[in-house]
Structure formats: structure tokens, C-alpha cells
């Protein structure tokens, strides 16, 4: 990767003269899941600044709490009451039943979130939330409560474009995070360092920008956090260490909020989120530190506004550098949602048909492998995960196998259809309008906007020849057009964005 830009100017706005369809496509693909031709046209016409204002707006599209998850809050309250009167054996049964319901709720929430994220008007924001949740990681496997996971994501949404210190402060109050990193286990006498360590290493500064002593002292300041009824935060003064602590060279009777305030006084805090953005949105190969610090310093001067950061990053000359275009491997979620948008489909409301492919491709929503989040990039790809991508692509073109559904799944499918969200696979009728065109024209229609890199003449020729050599029997051309499409979305080229 040869970036020739000067660090001081790399983050300045892309000149209008360089704003064109290709640039718009790059922006839409990276900020969202894909670039639909209509959206590319609109963005090109509106200009870069107006497009950024639209993609990163002041008022954001909210992800509403799914009913099943909301209901778990009531369930949790009822559980508390029931447990009090129960004997040991019944208690265990009650907890188990609760856990099962919570598990169903998180599965249901996954479907709802995928549906929300696939909507054109919320795609970019949903991806931004996914990005932030890949910094402030919690996992269902440990948290075990769907409403807590929802609340965590809701906190991120509310502060998604706020100053980062406010977001971090809110995260330190997120019950899911408190549980995930054992903050509620931290005692005055024996402070648990888990949260303090990840706060510095994975949420705000990055390795090498703090000492072990800073962690120990910060852990002392971060005492007194407790959860009530399993999910409600309260402050326990007698578990808080009120002694003097020295963190980043400053001494005082600090509490958790002070730790966060002190953290954001470090220069490294400015470079950290830009570093994570490059990793999540831009490139497998990390750019030079000088670029990160250049953006970081400007961001700090802007009071760490995440909205400013998003607009600056996605509008910068560096972001649009040709060396980055079409060179990034899609995450499984982006592959899935990109397909759903490119093929104009609805998310099928059958958990196993959504979650199993995601799992096989290596990314289950709400359940990252550990607090580091997903590594991403080339790590997404191996022979099994690539086979899983192909199998997902193929499944979207086969008539969906209804007889294989279980009874409860049939009900959900019927409900989705009744709501007009029942197109789960690509139907033959979708191709009718292009069948009478010439093979070259069909190839043009199929490939337009689909691939991140410009479609090579050789690739087009392969597809064109394949379609052109169809025998003149009924249905054969349609079959070949469908095969072409399946091959295209399974191709190495389509995995790139």
C-alpha cells in the first residue's frame, strides 16, 4: 500500500473535482452494505457534503426493542418474585426456564436487527453501531440477558454521534458491560482489573499507552458498581475505594468518571478510534501512525465528536485514495446484508436460516468470540467459510424449501408474508425483463453496480459467452442467467468491497 498523501492534509475533504460515481460507490459500500445504482446516482448528484450529512444525520433511525425482548424485562421482574418463594429445586427450574426464554429472545432480536440493518434508510447507521459495538464489545454468551444486550446497543445508538467521552461514560454504566467485564464483582478490598484494562487497551487508548500501575489505580477508582435484579445499575458507596489514586500522573480521590475524563486527556485517545475505523471500514493493512495522530489531534480539538469524526473520515482524501478501493473483504454480515440489498430481498424470519449461515461464515451477531471483537479482513476467509458464502448465495436462488420448515417456522413465514415482507429468494420473474436483451446487454445489467472493482472485460466475456451459448430450448436462457448471477455473487470479486 503506497499512500503518498501528506499526513497534515490527508484528512481534508475530497476535492469536488474528484467526486464522481466511483467515489460515491466507494463511500456507500464502505459506510453501508452495498451501493445500489439509484443511491449512487443520488449521491453523485447531491455532492459529497450533502451525502455525508444524510448518512450521518443529527436524528438517527432508532432500532426499537423487539416485543419478545421487551417482554423479558417483565419476565425478569416476575422471576425475582417467584424465586423468593421457591425452594432450591424450583429456583433452578425457574432460572432455567428464564434462560431459555431469554435465548429465544436474542435469536428473535437477531432477525429484527438484520431486518433493521437491511433497510436502506438505516443501513449506514446500523453499520456504525456494529462498528462501535465491535469496540465496546459485549457477548450474549456471558451476559445471558437479551434486554441487557438490547440496552447496550441502545446506549451505543444514543451516543453514537456524541462526544466519545460521553459514550464511554455511558458504556461504563451499561449493565451488559458491567456484567461482561465483571465490574460488579469488583470489591474495595480486591478491585477487579478486567474492566479497567479493557477500557484502556480496547476501548480508548490501545496497547502501549498506559502502565500496569495505571490499570491497578484505575481499577480502584472503578469500584462500587453493582447490579440489582440482575440488570439494574446502582452505586454501592461502601464498596468504593475512596483513597488517593495516581492515574496518568495525576493524583486525587478519583471515581470511575474521573478515570474516563483522565483517559481522554491522553493524546493516544484521539488516534484510537481512527485506528479502529481504518481496521473496520478501510483496510487490512494499517496506515502509518502519523496519519492516525494527525486525525486524532484534530478530533480531540473538536471535543471528540463522533459525528464530526465519521464525516471527516468518510469525506477525506485519504478515505478515497485509489489504493483502498475494492480491496477490502466483506464481513459475513456485510456479505449477507449486501446480498439482501443487491437482490432486493426480505430477511427470512426463520432463525436457523439466518443465524446458521452467519455462524458458518464466522460472525454471529451479538456474540463476538471475545472482548477483542472480530479480527476481520482475511481472517474471514478459509475454505469452509468461503463454502458457506457460496452456499448462502445458492440458497437465495433456489425456491425456498417450505416443506422443510417446522410448524412454528411456518407461522413466522406466514406472518412475514402477511406484512408484505415475504420475498426471501430471487424469483424467476425478476429476470423476465432482461431475457430478451442481447447476451452483452444482459451481462451489463447483471454486473452493473454489483462488483466493487470495475468489471474486467474478461469477466464480462465469460458471462456473455455462457449466456450466448444457451441452446434454444424453453427456459434455458433463464437458467443460464440465474447461474451467471449465482456465480457472480459467489465470485472472489463479489467478496470485495
Amino acid at each position: 500500500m503506497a499512500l503518498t498523501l501528506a499526513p497534515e492534509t490527508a484528512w481534508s475533504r475530497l476535492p469536488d473535482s474528484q467526486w464522481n460515481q466511483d467515489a460515491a460507490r466507494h463511500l456507500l459500500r464502505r459506510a453501508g452494505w452495498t451501493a445500489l445504482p439509484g443511491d449512487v446516482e443520488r449521491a453523485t448528484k447531491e455532492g459529497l457534503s450533502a451525502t455525508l450529512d444524510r448518512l450521518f444525520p443529527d436524528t438517527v433511525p432508532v432500532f426499537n426493542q423487539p416485543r419478545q425482548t421487551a417482554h423479558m424485562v417483565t419476565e425478569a421482574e416476575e422471576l425475582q418474585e417467584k424465586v423468593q418463594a421457591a425452594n432450591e429445586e424450583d429456583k433452578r427450574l425457574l432460572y432455567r426456564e428464564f434462560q431459555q426464554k431469554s435465548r429465544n429472545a436474542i435469536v428473535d432480536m437477531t432477525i429484527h436487527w438484520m431486518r433493521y440493518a437491511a433497510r436502506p434508510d438505516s443501513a449506514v447507521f446500523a453499520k456504525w453501531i456494529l462498528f462501535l459495538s465491535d469496540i465496546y464489545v459485549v457477548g450474549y454468551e456471558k451476559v445471558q440477558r437479551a434486554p441487557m444486550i438490547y440496552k447496550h446497543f441502545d446506549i451505543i445508538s444514543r451516543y453514537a454521534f456524541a462526544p466519545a467521552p460521553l459514550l464511554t461514560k455511558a458504556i461504563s454504566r451499561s449493565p451488559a458491560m458491567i456484567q461482561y467485564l465483571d465490574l460488579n464483582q469488583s470489591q474495595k478490598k480486591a478491585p477487579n482489573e478486567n474492566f479497567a484494562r479493557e477500557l484502556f487497551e480496547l476501548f480508548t487508548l490501545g496497547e502501549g499507552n498506559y502502565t500496569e500501575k495505571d490499570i491497578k489505580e484505575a481499577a480502584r477508582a472503578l469500584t462500587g458498581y453493582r447490579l440489582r435484579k440482575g440488570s439494574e445499575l446502582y452505586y454501592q458507596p461502601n464498596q468504593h475505594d475512596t483513597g488517593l489514586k495516581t492515574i496518568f500522573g495525576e493524583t486525587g480521590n478519583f471515581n470511575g468518571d474521573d478515570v474516563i475524563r483522565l483517559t481522554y486527556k491522553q493524546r493516544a485517545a484521539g488516534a484510537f478510534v481512527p485506528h479502529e475505523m481504518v481496521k473496520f471500514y478501510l483496510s487490512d493493512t494499517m496506515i502509518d501512525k502519523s496519519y492516525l495522530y494527525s486525525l486524532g489531534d484534530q478530533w480531540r480539538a473538536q471535543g471528540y465528536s463522533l459525528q464530526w469524526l465519521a464525516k471527516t473520515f468518510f469525506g477525506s482524501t485519504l478515505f478515497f485514495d485509489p489504493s483502498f478501493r475494492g480491496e477490502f473483504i466483506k464481513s459475513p454480515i456485510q456479505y449477507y446484508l449486501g446480498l439482501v440489498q443487491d437482490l432486493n430481498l426480505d430477511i427470512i424470519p426463520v432463525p436457523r436460516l439466518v443465524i446458521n449461515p452467519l455462524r458458518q461464515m464466522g460472525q454471529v451477531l451479538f456474540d463476538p468470540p471475545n472482548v477483542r471483537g472480530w479480527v476481520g479482513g482475511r481472517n474471514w476467509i478459509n475454505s469452509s467459510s468461503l463454502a458457506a458464502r457460496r452456499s448462502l448465495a445458492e440458497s437465495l436462488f433456489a425456491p425456498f424449501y417450505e416443506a422443510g420448515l417446522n410448524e412454528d417456522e411456518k407461522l413466522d413465514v406466514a406472518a412475514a408474508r402477511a406484512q408484505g415482507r415475504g420475498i426471501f429468494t430471487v424469483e424467476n420473474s425478476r429476470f423476465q425483463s432482461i431475457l430478451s436483451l442481447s447476451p452483452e446487454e444482459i451481462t451489463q445489467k447483471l454486473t452493473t453496480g454489483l462488483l466493487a472493482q470495475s468489471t474486467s472485460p474478461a469477466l464480462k466475456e465469460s458471462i456473455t459467452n455462457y449466456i450466448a451459448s444457451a441452446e434454444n430450448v424453453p427456459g434455458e436462457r433463464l437458467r443460464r442467467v440465474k447461474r451467471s448471477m449465482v456465480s457472480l455473487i459467489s465470485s472472489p470479486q463479489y467478496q470485495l468491497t
Partner: protein
Amino acid sequence: MATNTPQSSIPTTRREFLRSSATKGIGLLAFSQFAPSFLVNSTLAQAPKAEKDRSILVLIQLAGGNDGLNTLVPFQNDDYYRLRPNIGIAKDKVLRLSDTEGFNPVCGGMHNLFKDGKLAVIQNVGYPNPNRSHFRSTEIWETASDSDRVGATGWIGRYLDNACSGTPEGDHDPVAIHANTLNGAPESFIGENPHATFGLGGYGPNRKDAEETRRLLETLSGSPSGDHSSESFLKHTLMDSLVTETKVQKVINGYRTQANYPTTPFGNSLKNVASLIAANLPTRVYFVTLNGFDTHYNQIATQSRLLTELSNGLAAFQKDLEAHKLDNQVLTMTFSEFGRRASENESKGTDHGTASPLFVMGSKVKAGLHGTAPLLNIPKNQDITFSTDFRSVYATVLEKWLENPSEAVLGGKFSTLGFV
């Protein structure tokens, strides 16, 4: 086969691929700047791999929740007929296995296997704190976890983590193959490390479509660009799996079966598995799905059709393996996410339940009834209680068949049973 038989122009093994690369100037030479470590390693290590232990496991998933009580019928038990006044199977119809238990009348093939000493029946298999969701209970069986713990990896995947860590990365033959599954690779196959797995048939495209897609993809991933780009990396990875696919397809197309398999996707999948075993692939585990057991209403018709398919499929598979003298290498085992409620419902069907029997077939099994039958002196709508933990079955297969310590794979010590 003569060693100097002319090869087709398409390489069908990695080694062949590399060889043809060397002579025809495609492949390795062309992308020598970017030869991923697995390619380099395998060119360095072209000596054939030592013949490993060849014991093979075939898993058959009965998806949807098979009704155990109408598969293995306790025909002397009055409670059975009390709980199932409409769908209970009459005593004089069952195929007797013992004085108290008998097969559903459509299970003639399985009955013969039982009598020939090639089928073990493990009764009343389940796990504590049963979950009645298809999705979740399947997950529990596939991850072999406690029902209140969500596991991230499958038991076969963990077995492969254990057993195949020494396999050179360059050997790209799949270690596990699945066929006819509803949605891609089963969770069972997911390990801590990625393993080369491969999927066959299922509800995917037909052979012609699959072949044409493969050819198109070969064209699209052809001519590696010889640089460090993500695209080159993807092309190489894809090319790898296309090589495997071509090889597998060739094996399947050239196979001559010695048995009459059911002419269904399931029967066909079993035949394909037999062909791959006969081709001496290093694959250790196969996973085939038979789906549709969620019989909430009019159970008799649906379950009869499915059990016929299962029974005839198993019988044909065993016969085929025997004809090819492969039967000593293969153990076949069924499982289902749960059994069904002991009492029938109002629609002449059964609702989700708990434990059920599973079947293990092979020339090396200790045939007969294992474990104990479920107690049925329960009120209507109450579930039966399992008597054998499914992880004991897994432990037996791991220890006694695959000869692999089970504790690390299953995350705990489970006693082994006597069916192998």
C-alpha cells in the same frame, strides 16, 4: 488402476494440480510471487501421507424430532396404548426385537440388520433439562453442551481439532463432508480451528447447475494476478475448494453402486457417501440429513414415509459397503434433536418431547438393545425422562470407534456404553 492412465486435463487433487502447474505453466509458477504457505508446504512435502486409521463415522440427522415411541414400540406396555389411543401401533403389527420392544412395521430393513447383528438400538437417549425448541435442541446435540450452556463449537469440530492437528495444511481433502443438510455445514463441524469440510447435494442446485457454476467460477478465479491483493488471496482460496469439488464430482460420477438406494435426495446422499468412502478419501466424518420429522398432525402417514426411507437407506448403505468390503471401516449413527410427547395430541400427531432411541449400524457394532426403555406410567402431556445421556453415546463413539480421548472433546467425563 494402471498408474500411467492418462489424466484428464482438470487436476483433481492438489498434488495433481501442482504437478500440472509445473508442466503446464499455470498455477504455482505463475503466482510464485505469492505462493501461500500451504502451497509451498505441500510442494515441499509431496511424499504420500501415511495411511491413517481408517475408521469412519457417518452421522444421520433425523431433523424435526423423530417420534421414538412409534419407531421403537413398547408393545407390551398398556400405558403406551393409554397415551396413544389413535396413533399407537398395534401389537400384532410390530417387528419384534425382544419380548417387549418392536420396530415400526415399515422398518423391515432395520429389522433385518438387527437380526443379522449389525444394528444396535440405544434406548431413551436424551439430556438433563431438555429444551423443546428445534433450533436450540439441535444446537445442544451438535455442540454436546449442557442445555443451559451455549457452546460455540461442535463436537465433531473439536474431535477434528484434536485428531487432525498434525495434518499438513496443504492437504486440502475434506476431513468432514455433509450431504443433504438444510442449511450448509452442520454446527457439529465447527472447531476452534477451521477444517476443510465439504458439502454435497442437499437442497442446493442440481448436478448440471452445480457443474456449470463451478466452471464459471473457475473462469472467474482463473489467472491469479500474482500480487498480494485481497483478490488474489480470495482466488487462491476459492480455487482450492474448486479442486476438491471437481475431485468429489468425479468420484461420484464414476461410482458403481452394489445396492438399491431409495430414489430420494436422502438415499442419493447415502450412495454418494458410499462412493467417497470407496474412493479412499481421508474424510473421517460424514453427516447426512433426513428432514421432516416434525409430525404435529397425521403423524402415521408422514412418519411411515420417512422411516421407510431411513430403514431402506440404511440397509442399502450397509449392503453397498459390504459389497465393497468397506463395512469394517464404517460406523453409522442416527440422532434427532428430541423425541416427541408420549401422549398423542388432538390432531393425530405428537408435540415436541424429550428422549428417543438412536440407532448405530455397522459390521463392528454389538447389536441388540442397549440401555433401558422409557417409563410410561406418566400422566397425559408429561414428558418421558431420559435414561442414557447422548454424550455417553458420543463418548463411546469417540473412545471405542475413533480411538480418541473423549473428555477434552466433550468437556467432561461421560461413561461409555457397550454398543461398539
